[in-house]
C-alpha cells in the first residue's frame, strides 16, 4: 500500500490545486480514491485496494461480516440471495490471508461518489434495510438506515406526525447518512442531535447495541453515545436503525419571499432571528438555488416553514408578516414548500462544502462567496439555512446529477472528471478560512484543514476512536491520519 508523493508529480502537473497540497494531505486524499474528486488519470493509479461491496439484508449478516473482518471467524455465511453469497464467498476467499476492514453505506451504488475504504476490506451495502415504523402514541419513529428521508417523512405524515428535519438543498438522502455525515438535515430548532433518540448499531466488537433508549431521552446519564455516533460519522459502529422524535402537527405552511438583492434577505434573516417566532425551517438561496429548488425565479429567495395548531399557526403567520413588513409580501402555500416537492435522489445538486457561521459574520463571507460564484459560472450556487440563535449554515453547491457521473457524460460530469470539483472545494476552504466560520465537506473536503481548524478536538476524536475500536476495523480511513501499512 505504500504510495509516494513523488511518484505522481508528473501526473499532478495539470492540477495545480492538488500539486500545492502538502505531502501528508495529498497522500490522505489519494488513498480515499473518491471517484468524483480525483482526475481519472490519478484514479487509475490507485485502483489497487480490493473492495467488496456486500449486500446486507439482515442484522445478523452485518454481524457475521464484522466477525469475519475482526478475525473472530474464518469464514462468513451470509443470508440473502444465493448469487450474492456465491459472489461474496469467492471474493472473501481471495482475501482470506489479508487483514480486512469494514466500511458501510446505505446505498445501492456504494462506489459512486463516496469515501471508499482505505484498506482492503468489506464495504457493506445496507440499502436493503429500509423499514419505517411510526409510533404516534410515543411521538417517535424507527427507520432503518436504507430508507430515504422522503420515505421516512411521508410515513410520519401518514400518521399525522412531522419529522422536523429538512434538507437545505432539494436532495433526498438516506436516513442512515445522518450518522454517515452526508445527510445534511436540519431545522430551525437544531440538527439531528435534537431529534435522534437511539441508534441500533453494531460496534467494533460486533456486539449489537443501542446507543440510547426508544422511549426516553438519554442525555443525562453516562456518555452521550448518540452524539458521539453523530460526531464520529462512520467510524464507531455500523448503524442498522435510528429512532427519531417526531412532532404532532395539524397544518404546515410554507411562506416564500422573493428579494431583488441579497441585502433584503439579510435584513429579513436578522428580523426573524430577533422576533418571537418559532418556524420549522428557514432557508434561503441565491438566484441559482432559487432556480434549482425554491422555484423562486430570478431573485433571491427566502422560505419560512411554519407548523402548529389552527390559531397558533395563524398567529405565527401573522407575526412573520408583521416582522418582515407589509412591503415584503410573502406567498403562502399549505404543505412543506417547494424544497420538499423538489427533493429527489435522481436530480439533486450536490454540496461542495458545509460552512457554519453566525448571522453577524455572514455578510462579509457571503460577499466573498458570491464573487466566487460569479467567477465560476452558473453551474455553481449558494443556499443556506438559519437556526435559532443566529447560526447560519451555507452550502455552496454544484448543479448536476448526483448519480451516474461516469455514464451521463454531460459538461458537469466532464468537469468532475477533470478534478474540478476538488479544485472548487479547495477554493471554498480557502475563502472560508478568511472568515470566522468552520468549513467541512463530508467527502474529500473533510481532509482539508481539519487538523488546523479543529485542532485538539480532532486529535481527541482520534483518541476516542482508538480507545473504542482497538483493532481499527471500522472505516480505518475515517479519521484520516496518514495511512500506515497494516
Amino acid at each position: 500500500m505504500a504510495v509516494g508523493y513523488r511518484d505522481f508529480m508528473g501526473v499532478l502537473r495539470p492540477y495545480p490545486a492538488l500539486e500545492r497540497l502538502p505531502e501528508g494531505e495529498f497522500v490522505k486524499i489519494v488513498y480515499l480514491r473518491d471517484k468524483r474528486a480525483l482526475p481519472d488519470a490519478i484514479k487509475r493509479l490507485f485502483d489497487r485496494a480490493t473492495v467488496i461491496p456486500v449486500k446486507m439484508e439482515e442484522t445478523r449478516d452485518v454481524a457475521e461480516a464484522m466477525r469475519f473482518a475482526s478475525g473472530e471467524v474464518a469464514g462468513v455465511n451470509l443470508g440473502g440471495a444465493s448469487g450474492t453469497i456465491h459472489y461474496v464467498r469467492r471474493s472473501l476467499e481471495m482475501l482470506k490471508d489479508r487483514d480486512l476492514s469494514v466500511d458501510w453505506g446505505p446505498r445501492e451504488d456504494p462506489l459512486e461518489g463516496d469515501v471508499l475504504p482505505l484498506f482492503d476490506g468489506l464495504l457493506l451495502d445496507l440499502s436493503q434495510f429500509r423499514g419505517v415504523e411510526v409510533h404516534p402514541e410515543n411521538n417517535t419513529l424507527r427507520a432503518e438506515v436504507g430508507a430515504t428521508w422522503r420515505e421516512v417523512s411521508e410515513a410520519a405524515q401518514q400518521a399525522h406526525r412531522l419529522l422536523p428535519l429538512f434538507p437545505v438543498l432539494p436532495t433526498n438522502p438516506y436516513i442512515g447518512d445522518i450518522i454517515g455525515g452526508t445527510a445534511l438535515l436540519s431545522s430551525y430548532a437544531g440538527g439531528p442531535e435534537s431529534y435522534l433518540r437511539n441508534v441500533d448499531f453494531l460496534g467494533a466488537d460486533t456486539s449489537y447495541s443501542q446507543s440510547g433508549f426508544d422511549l426516553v431521552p438519554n442525555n443525562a446519564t453516562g456518555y452521550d453515545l448518540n452524539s458521539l455516533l453523530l460526531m464520529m460519522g462512520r467510524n464507531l459502529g455500523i448503524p442498522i436503525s435510528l429512532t427519531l422524535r417526531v412532532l404532532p402537527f395539524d397544518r404546515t405552511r410554507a411562506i416564500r419571499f422573493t428579494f431583488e438583492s441579497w441585502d433584503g434577505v439579510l435584513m429579513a434573516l436578522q428580523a426573524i432571528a430577533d422576533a418571537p417566532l418559532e418556524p420549522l425551517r428557514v432557508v434561503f438561496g441565491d438566484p441559482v438555488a432559487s432556480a434549482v429548488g425554491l422555484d423562486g425565479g430570478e431573485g433571491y429567495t427566502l422560505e419560512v416553514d411554519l407548523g402548529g395548531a389552527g390559531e397558533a399557526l395563524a398567529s405565527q403567520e401573522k407575526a412573520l408578516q408583521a416582522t418582515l413588513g407589509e412591503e415584503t409580501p410573502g406567498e403562502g402555500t399549505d404543505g412543506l414548500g417547494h424544497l420538499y416537492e423538489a427533493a429527489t435522489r435522481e436530480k439533486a445538486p450536490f454540496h461542495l462544502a458545509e460552512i457554519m457561521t453566525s448571522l453577524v459574520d455572514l455578510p462579509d463571507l457571503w460577499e466573498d462567496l458570491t464573487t466566487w460564484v460569479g467567477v465560476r459560472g452558473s453551474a455553481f450556487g449558494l443556499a443556506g439555512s438559519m437556526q435559532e440563535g443566529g447560526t447560519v449554515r451555507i452550502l455552496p453547491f454544484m448543479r448536476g446529477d448526483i448519480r451516474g457521473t461516469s455514464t451521463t457524460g454531460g459538461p458537469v460530469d466532464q468537469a468532475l472528471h477533470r478534478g474540478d470539483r476538488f479544485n472548487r472545494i479547495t477554493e471554498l476552504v480557502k475563502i472560508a478560512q478568511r472568515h470566522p466560520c468552520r468549513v467541512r465537506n463530508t467527502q474529500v473536503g473533510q481532509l482539508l484543514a481539519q487538523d488546523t481548524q479543529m485542532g485538539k478536538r480532532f486529535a481527541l476524536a482520534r483518541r476516542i476512536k482508538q480507545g473504542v475500536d482497538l483493532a481499527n476495523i471500522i472505516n480505518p480511513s475515517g479519521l484520516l491520519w496518514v495511512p500506515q501499512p497494516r
Partner: protein
Amino acid sequence: MVYSDLSYAYRRLRDTLGEERVSKDHMEQVLYTHDFASLPKQAAIQFRLNPDLMVLPKSTQEVVRVLRLGKELELPVVPRGGGTSLHAGSVPNLGGILLSTSLMKRVVEVDVDRRFLTIQGGATWDEALEAAEAAGMSFPLEPLLRRAATVGGHLSNGGVGIGSYKYGAFSRWVRSLEVVLPDGDVLETGERAFDLGSRNYNLTNLFLGAEGTLGVITKATLRLRAKPEGFAVAAYGFPDMATLGEGLRALTQSPVTPYHIGFFDESHLIMQRAFQGYRAWARGPRAELEQTPRVPALPAAALVAFEGSKDQVQAEAKATAQILTEAGGTRQEDFVAELLWAQRDQPYQSRRISGGLVAVEALVPLSRLEEAVAGATKLARKMKTEAAVHGFLTDRSSALLVPYLVTDERTLRGQLSLAFVERFHEFVLGLQGHPVGLGFLATYNLAPMFGPLVGMMQGIKNSLDPDNVVNRGKLVETLAKPPPLYPFSEFIVPPGLMRFGLRFLSAFRRLMPSQRIITRLKKRGV
C-alpha cells in the same frame, strides 16, 4: 496508588493557589463527605469519603495545575460544583483532592450580537440567568435546583430542566465548553459564536452527563435568546394520577407546545402546604397563618406554563385549557398556579420540617407515568416510609420523575432509607425508563442500561484519562477502599455486590418501625 506524599502535595498546592485556598482541615473534610444525598455513616466502611485535601481554584490555569499534580502524584481529583447531585457524584470515594469550583463565578463574555454568554463553571444557574437578564437576553432552561446548582456541575450531570418540553435538553443550548482534561490539556469543545451541531468534531455533548469523569468544566458558553414577549401559567387539579396521566398524554398528542408541564402527587402538595404553613407560622401570628395563600390539597395537579408571542401564548393557553378540561382536569385559581410556579425551584423545602429526605431522579416513558408514580409510592410503603412525587415532562414521550422519601436522617432508619434508590432504579428500568445520574452508588445500573456499550464507555474513559485521575471509580465502575488483605490495591466493587449491599439495607429497613410523616400531616388537615 501512593498516598505517602500528601504533605508534599499540600505544599505544592499551597504554593500554587495560596494558603487560603488550600485546606486539610477536618471540619471541612466532613462537609464534603456528602452531597444532596446524605450517605449513611456506614458508607465510610467501604469508601474514603473524606477528601485528603481541598482546593478552591479561581482560574482555568489553576485547575490545570491541580490536575497535573493529581496525575503526577497519582492522587484522585474529585471536581465539585454546588453539591446538588443526588447520587454521590461529587463525593470522594477514595479520598484525594477535592476541587471545588465555587470561586469560579466570573462572567467571561456576553455577546448580544452573536447571542452567547460565557461564564465560569462555578457560577450558579441563578447567577448565569441574572447575567443573561442583565444583558437584555434570556436563557430558556433552568435546573430544578438552580439556586445552588452550578453551571459546570449541572451540565456534568446532563440533561433536562424546566423549559425542556419546549426547548429541549441543555445540550441544545450549550455552544461550547472549556474543559480541563485529565492530563491538564485545555479543550474548547465547540465554537462560541455559532452552533456546530453534532458535526465538525463537536465534543460538547460528550462531557454533558459524564459526571466529571472525563474532565473539569471550567467555562461554558450558553446560547441566549431574545426575551419572550408573553408568558402565562395555569394550574389544573385532577381526581387522581391516572386521570392526570391521560390528560397530559392528550396534551402531548396535540400540536400545542407549552413551555413547561409539571405534575405533582397528593403527598408532594401536602408537603408544600405544610412548608408554606410552617414558614408563615415562623413569621407571625396565627391570624396571618390562616390568611397565607397555600396550595390546595388536591389528589393530583398539573402546572402548565406558556411563552412566546402574546397571541401565541393566548392561543396555546386556550387550547390547553380545552384539552385538560375535557380530560377531567379542573382549572385552579390563578394564585395556585403562581404559587406553584414560584416554588418550581424549591421542591424540597419540606426537608426543613422532616429533618431530611432521600430524592431520586429517573426518566420514565409518559405512557407509564401513573404506573411509575404508583410504583414509587408502593416501594416506599414496603420500606415502611412514604414517598412524595413531583416531576415534569421532558418531551412528548417522557417525563422526569422525582420521588422523594421524607425521613429523618439523624436516625438509623432515616439513613437506611437510602436503599430506596436501588429498588426504585430497578423498578424504573423495568418500565423502559432509566435512572438519572449514577455517581458511585448506582454504577451497577450501567450494564442494565447500556449492555455491551459499557465496554465502549470504559474505552472512552481510558482513552481520555488513562491514569484514572478525574473522579476515579465513578460512573463506569465503582472503586472503593482497598480490603484489609490487599492494602495496596484499589478495590473494584462488583456491581452485584453494590446492589446486594443496598438490598441488604433495604431489607434491614423493613424490619424497623414505620415513619409516616405525610400521613400524620394529612390527618392533621394540612
